[in-house]
């Protein structure tokens, strides 16, 4: 409650009957102004006459703040108010704030607390590097923002770098060396929601100037990035490190088969050098090292000439080891350019799909891969199981046999059909399709026996629209079936209907053949002839073998040879 100046100080010539006491006072009542006095701890408002002196003001203050007037130091506009000054002299008007410091008796204490605080800062920073880095790294990696407006976050990280990009690299290193942290981060719903926002990811990728240059050189990449469906799929895959791993391994396998196609190796290599390398170099400067930098230079020709009839069962060398770039066979190089079975006739769109997928992959999977690869190298059986899943193999084999199929798959079905285009741009439709896909996935795990029975019917209607959800641009075209093996790592039985199902899915994606189940003899006509030419004269056995392997000649031959006693 503001007090009348009269009661708090010596008698003022303001309201008394003897109004004209002092010559200095104005004939009218001096205006009472309200001045706020602010201390570090509190704030009070005072009503004082305008022409008070500082001394008088202090006396009013000392009563309110319960201190001696000589302990009070008033500051206004950077000036220390002396007792003999007046408020007007300093320009203190109504509504302004004056600062007050109350000098404490034990003045040395105030100064000694300061060095102890400085020491306190260091102990705080040393004691909370880990917990702070966990949270800060979420925000700063991969987006590179420090804590907002506070030195606090940085100093408490306990990191020694001053430059922010160094900081970022350091955090990357920390993440690389700590798979638990990476897993934590990946599991973080915030990160996942960010990852699942294709617009955000696209903008992030576009913001990189190298990426922009790359886009200028290869305009297909911009089409790629603008396709929300591809981005969504890519991000889904990137989010799930196990899925990513599986995808990379399977494509690796497919490509190792592709190399046996004449000209295939060269096409792959061209694809890599034209597209992959600049992208990876663009990613390099942000994320610390292109693990495949040495690949282009050390291209081994041995792999290319020898058709791999059996997959390479050794665990592949780890290209993501922290000391950068372990060596490469061409197998490793094919791991980077994970082509969806595109052979010599691969369109650049395919390569770009893949390259963009890999760019994103290199962003998100580099630290996460570390732990996964550790697990996998410890348990090679896991890889073998995954790789020997027959339907996976068969799909890749069939794709590799017929590169046109894959090219068609990429170009025709998703893109040309205007229905799918409109569906893809409609987020609700996409959601519905995703739900369908998820439903199919769940069904596949819950009641796998039901799936083969889907064979003729749903393929038809799902055919043109199905690619929107299942096939869309991603290398593992039938994601329903490809997600199934990720859950059941043990290979299911190599039943004929499953093989046929895959075949039909693939065919449907390419839109090349009618959705009806063709006669296996007709389907495998070409392969049968080849087997005949090779000397396998038992047509029945050939057919069985081909059906069992889904048209894979090499695998069929193995089966045939295995079944013969000699």
């Amino acid at each position, binding site marked *: 409650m503001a007090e009348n100046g009269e009661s708090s100080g010596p008698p003022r010539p303001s309201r008394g009957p003897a109004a004209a006491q002092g010559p200095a006072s104005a004939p009218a009542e001096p205006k009472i102004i309200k001045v706020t006095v602010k201390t570090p701890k509190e704030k009070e408002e005072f009503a004082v006459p305008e022409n008070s002196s500082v001394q008088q003001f202090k006396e009013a203050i000392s009563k309110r703040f319960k201190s001696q007037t000589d302990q009070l130091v008033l500051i206004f506009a950077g000036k220390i108010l002396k007792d003999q000054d007046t408020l007007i002299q300093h320009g203190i008007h109504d509504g302004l704030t004056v600062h007050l410091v109350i000098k404490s008796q034990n003045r040395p204490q105030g100064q000694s607390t300061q060095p102890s605080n400085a020491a306190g800062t260091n102990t705080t920073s040393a004691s909370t590097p880990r917990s702070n880095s966990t949270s800060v790294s979420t925000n700063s990696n991969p987006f590179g923002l420090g804590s907002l407006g506070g030195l*606090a976050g*940085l100093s408490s990280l306990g990191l020694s770098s001053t430059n*922010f990009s160094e900081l970022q690299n350091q955090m990357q290193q920390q993440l690389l060396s700590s798979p638990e942290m990476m897993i934590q981060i990946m599991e973080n719903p915030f990160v996942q929601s960010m990852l699942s926002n294709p617009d955000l990811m696209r903008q992030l990728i576009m913001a990189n100037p190298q990426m922009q240059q790359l886009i200028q050189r290869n305009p297909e990449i911009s089409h790629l990035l603008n396709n929300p469906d591809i981005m969504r799929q890519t991000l889904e895959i990137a989010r799930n490190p196990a899925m990513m791993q599986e995808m990379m391994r399977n494509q690796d396998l497919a490509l190792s088969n592709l190399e046996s196609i004449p000209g295939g190796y060269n096409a792959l290599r061209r694809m890599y050098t034209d597209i992959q390398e600049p992208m990876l170099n663009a990613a390099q400067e942000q994320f610390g090292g292109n693990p495949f930098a040495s690949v282009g230079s050390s291209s081994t020709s041995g792999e290319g000439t020898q058709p791999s009839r059996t997959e390479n069962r050794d665990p592949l060398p780890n290209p993501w080891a922290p000391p950068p770039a372990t060596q490469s066979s061409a197998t490793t190089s094919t791991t980077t350019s994970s082509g969806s079975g595109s052979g010599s006739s691969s369109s650049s769109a395919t390569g770009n799909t893949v390259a963009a997928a890999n760019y994103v992959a290199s962003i998100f999977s580099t630290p996460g891969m570390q732990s996964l690869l550790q697990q996998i190298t410890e348990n090679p059986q896991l890889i073998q199981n995954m790789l020997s899943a027959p339907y996976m193999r068969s799909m890749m084999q069939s794709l590799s046999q017929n590169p046109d199929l894959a090219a068609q798959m990429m170009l025709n079905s998703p893109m040309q059909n205007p229905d799918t285009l409109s569906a893809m741009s409609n987020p609700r439709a996409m959601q519905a399709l995703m739900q369908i896909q998820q439903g199919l996935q769940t069904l596949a795990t819950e009641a796998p026996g039901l799936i083969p029975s889907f064979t003729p019917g749903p393929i038809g209607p799902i055919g043109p629209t199905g690619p929107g959800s299942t096939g869309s641009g991603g290398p593992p075209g039938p994601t329903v079936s490809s997600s199934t093996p990720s859950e059941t790592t043990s290979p299911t039985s190599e039943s004929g209907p499953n093989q046929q199902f895959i075949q039909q899915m693939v065919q449907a994606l390419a839109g090349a053949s009618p959705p009806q189940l063709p006669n296996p003899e007709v389907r495998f006509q070409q392969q049968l002839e080849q087997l005949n030419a090779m000397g396998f004269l038992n047509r029945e056995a050939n057919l069985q073998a081909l059906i069992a392997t889904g048209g894979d000649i090499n695998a069929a031959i193995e089966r045939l040879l295995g079944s013969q006693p000699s």
Partner: protein
Amino acid sequence: MEPPNLYPVKLYVYDLSKGLARRLSPIMLGKQLEGIWHTSIVVHKDEFYFGVGGISSCPPGGTLLGPPDSVVDVGSTEVTEELFQEYLSSLRESLFRRESYNVFENNCNTFTNEVVQFLTGRKIPSYITDLPSEILSTPFGQALRTFLDPRIQPPEGSPMGPPNGQS
């Protein structure tokens, strides 16, 4: 009586994002931010700032951030060093205790604003003090808040919580 000494007061402004905010903010936040500003006061040949460790000081430009990105001259003050230290120690017990650091509402810039007003009567530029509200007015900023503001509980099941260093 001799004229009192005037001590110059400078505001050191640092961009914590080192330029990234200018590039990425339109994408991430939807609005253009020129930087993530951290400020400190330099007076009496010392730099004073407020962080999770409380009010601290160092030689000017001596923090991890290195030299400031810009320096604003906010005037001069008659406040002596001794008086200033008294003032700071009062602040340490009141508004700017170590545990009262809040990255959005009571951060280094809040501190700087208070001190500059005390020393010179002026305020620091508004683009600095407006930063938290600018960020919080975006959805991204709101999301970020759950991780940076210890008063807000992160959603159930999230492994990320407020860092232990902050109360």
